[in-house]
């Protein structure tokens, strides 16, 4: 966890005070809603179907226990006792009163948190690998770069009124848990042939109405030239991105229109003019690296007798361990992923009590470190294997022990028509029905990794384009219908899913998913995931089965 210094704290405090004044002017009637809208949107405050929604930044999905407890407190005091973790690793409260927001921001500032740039046409919260600093796979700790980008992009004087919102993801592991290739900029940390650290830079990926897997515009950017290069990309975009049509304003449209090569050339030209002047000094990068709280790992044996014995005695713990634990870089430690996809619950929601429980676990067993994943789960990145049985028991006690990470019921869903003014259809109840259909854990494990992603409208907040199975809610003459896509992926093997066939009515969706899974189980060859089978067989067997059933 990056430790704020006085400057970081004062920057957040000043922003909070500014927003208090703006809300004051609105409440006093000095500002109309029209005038206030852009101001509140610059601070993550949306007006939704029933109330205001406040989106709080969780930079690169990293929280400590004090921050998590503060979120729990805000949920209890100003909302309805829960919050919603998002696909951008942020947290949203959906039942907020305008007059409370300045106080909420002050509470957040107390624990070095804020809502800066969680909406608006600016550089949004940078997202990163939730296993950063813990996974064996990584080349470097991407949080250092994420924090440097957070600072550079915060209240940027030139890039706060871009053509459209701008999202950056950064990962240092070959297995991509950030969906980097469908971001405005995806940064993948690489080692050059001489061992030097650098970035593969991917620009112009995205979802929404026009999904693209972003092209790589530079294979290897030396790490110390990152900030001048980002400035060059943003400047080319700020000057030349379309502003005449909201739906064509993202950088992906500019990159596609110019072609990746020409876009890269323009960036290179601008980059040469900026020069190293635009880079962050190495001393500052070193300072940021040093400002991350030290993790204190003990020398432990790779195998924990306690853990092995507990697993052998408790099949539920064994199942949890198979599905929710990931390899840690230190022997005797593990990464614990906490599923927020308990069957019957809203994907990504956590109650204030659950947040407190996770905070307690992090403090007691997990080096005070908590992460949010872009798939809307939580992570305790540093747990001793010896402590897993206790952690599991405590998670069970608060209903957070679902052993379904990466399985069919680990579904991403946007808030949909239950909350969102833009939605055409509900997303949450569809996710709940599917989760019910596959509640049998034996079966879910037999199916293996299968990513279902659901969006309630074409804006694709539920990332349906990159679901192994994607589900898109559409409105047909006032009725909710759902368009299925197959074969998408947001990971290192990124691709955009292809439409299966005509949209299905609300009550046919779960059955159709069941049919798709049956076809997969019938067709799959040695250890293939659903995605692999689909990529091998193509859409035909799936299509035939679903639409044969539908008639």
């Amino acid at each position, binding site marked *: 966890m990056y430790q704020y*210094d006085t*400057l*970081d704290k*004062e*920057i957040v405090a*000043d*922003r909070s*005070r*500014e927003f208090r004044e*703006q809300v004051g002017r609105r409440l006093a009637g000095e500002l109309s809603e029209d005038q206030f809208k*852009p*101001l509140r949107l*610059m601070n993550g405050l949306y007006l939704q179907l029933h109330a205001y929604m406040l989106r709080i930044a969780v930079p690169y999905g990293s929280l400590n226990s004090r921050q998590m407890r503060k979120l729990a407190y805000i949920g209890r005091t100003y909302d309805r006792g829960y919050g919603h973790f998002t696909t951008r690793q942020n947290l949203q409260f959906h039942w907020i009163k305008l007059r409370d927001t300045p106080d909420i921001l002050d509470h957040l500032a107390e624990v070095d948190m804020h809502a800066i740039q969680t909406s608006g*046409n600016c550089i949004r919260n940078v997202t990163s690998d939730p296993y950063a600093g813990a996974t064996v796979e990584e080349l470097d700790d991407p949080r250092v770069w994420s924090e440097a980008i957070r*600072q*550079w992009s*915060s*209240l*940027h*004087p*030139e*890039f*706060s*009124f*871009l053509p459209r919102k701008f999202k950056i993801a950064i990962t240092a592991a070959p297995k991509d848990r950030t969906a980097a290739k469908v971001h405005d900029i995806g940064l993948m940390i690489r080692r050059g042939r001489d061992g030097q650290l650098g970035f593969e830079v991917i620009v112009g990926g995205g979802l929404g109405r026009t999904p693209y897997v972003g092209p790589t515009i530079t294979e290897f950017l030396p790490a110390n030239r990152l900030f001048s290069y980002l400035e060059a990309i943003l*400047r080319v975009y*700020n*000057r030349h991105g379309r*502003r005449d049509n909201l739906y064509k304003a993202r950088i992906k449209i500019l990159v596609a229109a110019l072609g990746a090569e020409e876009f890269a050339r323009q960036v290179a030209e601008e980059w040469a*003019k900026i020069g190293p*002047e*635009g880079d*962050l*000094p190495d*001393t*500052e990068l070193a*300072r940021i690296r040093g400002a991350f709280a030290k993790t204190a790992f003990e020398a432990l044996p790779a195998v924990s007798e306690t853990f092995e014995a507990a697993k052998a005695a408790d099949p539920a713990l064994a199942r949890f361990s198979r599905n929710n634990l990931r390899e840690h870089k230190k022997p005797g430690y593990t990464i614990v992923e906490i599923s927020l996809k308990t069957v019957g619950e809203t994907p990504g929601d956590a109650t204030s009590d659950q947040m407190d429980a996770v905070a307690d676990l992090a403090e007691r067993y997990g080096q005070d470190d908590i992460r949010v994943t872009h798939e809307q789960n939580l992570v305790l990145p540093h747990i001793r294997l010896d402590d897993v049985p206790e952690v599991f028991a405590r998670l069970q006690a608060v209903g957070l022990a679902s052993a379904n990470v990466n399985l069919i019921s680990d579904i991403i869903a946007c808030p949909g028509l239950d909350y969102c003014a833009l939605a055409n259809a509900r997303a949450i109840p569809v996710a709940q029905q599917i989760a019910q259909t596959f509640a049998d854990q034996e079966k879910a494990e037999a199916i293996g990794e299968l990513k279902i992603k659901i969006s309630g409208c074409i804006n694709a907040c539920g990332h349906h384009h990159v679901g192994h199975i994607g589900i898109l809610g559409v409105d047909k003459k006032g009725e909710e219908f759902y368009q299925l896509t197959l074969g998408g992926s947001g990971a290192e093997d990124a691709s955009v899913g292809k439409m299966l066939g005509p949209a299905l009515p609300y009550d046919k969706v779960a059955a159709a998913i069941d049919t798709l899974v049956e076809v997969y189980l019938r067709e799959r060859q040695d250890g293939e995931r659903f995605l692999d089978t689909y990529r091998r067989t193509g859409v035909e067997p799936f299509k035939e089965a679903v639409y044969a059933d539908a008639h």
Partner: protein
Amino acid sequence: MPTLIKLDAGRFVLANDPFTAVTDDEGLPLGDVIISFTRFQAEGERLLAEGRAVGVRLEPDEEVEALAYDLPRIAVVAVAFPKFRDGRGFTSARLLRERLDYAGEIRAVGDVFREQAGFMVRCGFNAFEPSDGSTPDIWAHAVSRHRHVYQRAADARAPAFLEREGG
């Protein structure tokens, strides 16, 4: 007459505006004028020869580099914000200061409100025609709201990483 606020030796003051802003389809009044770049290309030479001070209005879709040759004789660059959401003017101002070394007046005109004041000053603007009724005091308050900044820009402020080195 819109209010004109100028940044003068670190202070925001109400200023008299000797310039008349003229659109392309208006006739030219006497005295100093701010005209479009197209009009400047056609008539600038003559107006300057008459001894007038001439300013140029730069629209968001106009490349600021096109002014480079004429900059020494342009008295004001009025960067237009037809909508506050259009942030191209911030880039134009920065490039004027940092790349084209323009030291004269860069004036923000159009949909200009106090929430952008700080960003504008950082990008090199030193004159403002607020459209939200801001007074120099309000403008100064808005600009000084943030004690620190994270980035280098066109102003002289030390970004956080330099402040830290100093402290």
